[in-house]
């Protein structure tokens, strides 16, 4: 999956493209490593082109969310596709993340 990270002022915009599954989960983890280092995380994910996520992807998002909570920052997942949204819904992860249009 392609991950593009852009800093806009205090916000970090991350654009995701493609599928997030077990084959590329490690790469995703590396990609977001710099987000994990952020002391004042204010992150927005653009999921328009995110086609799919597996549980491994969910775990990585969860790791990021915990980090953001610890630093009292914010994390928003935007423009999710219905199928991906469904994954978050049925696993109960919609309760954990801020998911917006």
């Amino acid at each position, binding site marked *: 999956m392609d991950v593009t990270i852009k800093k806009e002022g205090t916000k970090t915009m991350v654009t995701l493209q493609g599928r997030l599954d077990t084959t590329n989960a490690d790469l995703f983890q590396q990609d977001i490593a710099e987000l994990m280092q952020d002391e004042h995380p204010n992150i927005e994910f653009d999921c328009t082109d995110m086609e799919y996520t*597996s*549980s491994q992807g*969910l*775990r990585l998002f*969860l790791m990021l969310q915990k980090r953001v909570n610890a630093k009292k920052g914010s994390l928003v997942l935007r423009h*999710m596709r*219905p199928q991906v*949204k*469904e*994954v978050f*819904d*049925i*696993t*109960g*992860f*919609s*309760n*954990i993340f801020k*998911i*917006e*249009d």
Partner: protein
Amino acid sequence: MSLDLHNQMILDEYREQLPVFKKIQEIVEAQLRQCIASNNLYVNAVESRIKSEKSLTGKLQQKGHKYNSVKDITDIVGARVITFYTDEVDKIAALADKIFEIDWANSIDKRKMLELDQFGYMSLHYICRIPKTLYEDPEHPEINDYRFELQMRTALQHVWATINHDTGYKMGVEVPWEYLRNINRIAGMLELADEQFSRIRKEIIDYRRNIQSLVASGNFDEVPLNGDTFKSFLALNPFKRLIEKIAAINQAEIYNDDLYHYISIFKKMQFKTLGDVVRLIKEYSDDAYQLALHQFASTDLDIVALSVAPQNLCIAHIVKNGGGETGLKTFFDKLFGKNNYNRERVHRVYSLCQEINIIESSSNDLSSNLLDRALKFAIDAHANTERRGKGFPYIVHPMEAVEIVASITPDQELLAAAALHDTVEDTNVTVEQIRQEFGDRVARIVKAESDNQHGVPAGSTWKERKIAALDVLRNASQEVKIVALGDKLSNMRAIARDYQKLGDKLWDRFHAPNGKADHAWRYHELAKALSSLKDTDAYKEFEYLVNKTFDLTELRIDN
């Protein structure tokens, strides 16, 4: 104004030793913060300051002759801890005694110093040193020699001191009598407030302890649903069995997210006690599991959040109680906040529920011919009884109730309860028999419909009995209300029909002493008590008939 030689010497000493004073301040504040945190105390503030040159100069001018060196001045370094409650001041004092060396000779509990007519409302001051065991620097032994002042007070005492200080009155003598009187009154009020805060806090702690034991006892029906009780309840991990079963579908890992926000959802679902939540889990777990099974089986998702358990339970509950897509939308709006995803979520979930017949099936093994058996049972029970003054068999009324309930929900257990709702009240049938034949849920609803005593004393008037019954109905669960609506609408249809034919002579047939006005009052109150069903067609018909038959002007003012 310049200082005399003696005072100037002290001032010079002060300037020279400033780095030492700064070091002491740093150590003291850090120690206080750490000690407070590690003892899990929550205080308003921890502050410290070094006396400014200006302030020191002023002090020396007034009483410089009392001091031989800067060492003798004990408040060059000052630290302050502001707590919320008076008992915490004592706790901080005890901690200070442990970590610092207290100069007891010079420490005063200024709180005890007050005369009855003295104003103030003061704090606890300790004069302390940093012991060598805490910090030592062989090059600067003064760090353990110079004293500092530790002030401990409550937030209210602090407000008092600050306001007081602002007035510029430091000594008692210069204060005008009027001011003195008023300021004493405020001091008294603030002192009382401090006492009240402590008392309230103690009461909350006792309350929470009681709640914990009440929850532990398992008498969930007696425990009201509120923040404290829900928290204690969650600590028992009530969703464990369900989430483990769901997780087993794909050998998933369970992530234990926080469920506290479900309290507002349960309240919105009209749950009043923990017993209602326990029943939700007991009666809808199978459906919640079925839902999860169909959602997960075709995926390889191997992680689930704990919140799937209450989430699916609520979905099953809403759908089986006739909430439909509207109910689901309200639920998702509350759970996730209003957003554009919710509409699509509702469609998806509701279609799935229909597909797997959650709406049809009940979690009871007796499901398949439950309604048939209930109808046969009711026919037998009401055999040879007639509907009041009508000349047709009584069974027609419960059957009409079943038809009405069916327009709201296809839940077989509610339909069965509608069929059986008058069997206990009007025939020899007992609730226990119903329980054995049709299960706990049907029995519970029929019992609620039959309780025509409601704890009112014998010899009560018609009105008193009806008021008690209305109270019970108002606070009843949604499923009881649905069956009650079936019953009451059937009655109302009959009343409306007869009123068309007979007019006001109709009221001679009934028990109520004041005829039409009493019935008008009762039916209007019934409509209000059942208003949580206002989105159903049945309710709308009920309201329409009530308003048509009982003009609002019929209601007497002394109701």
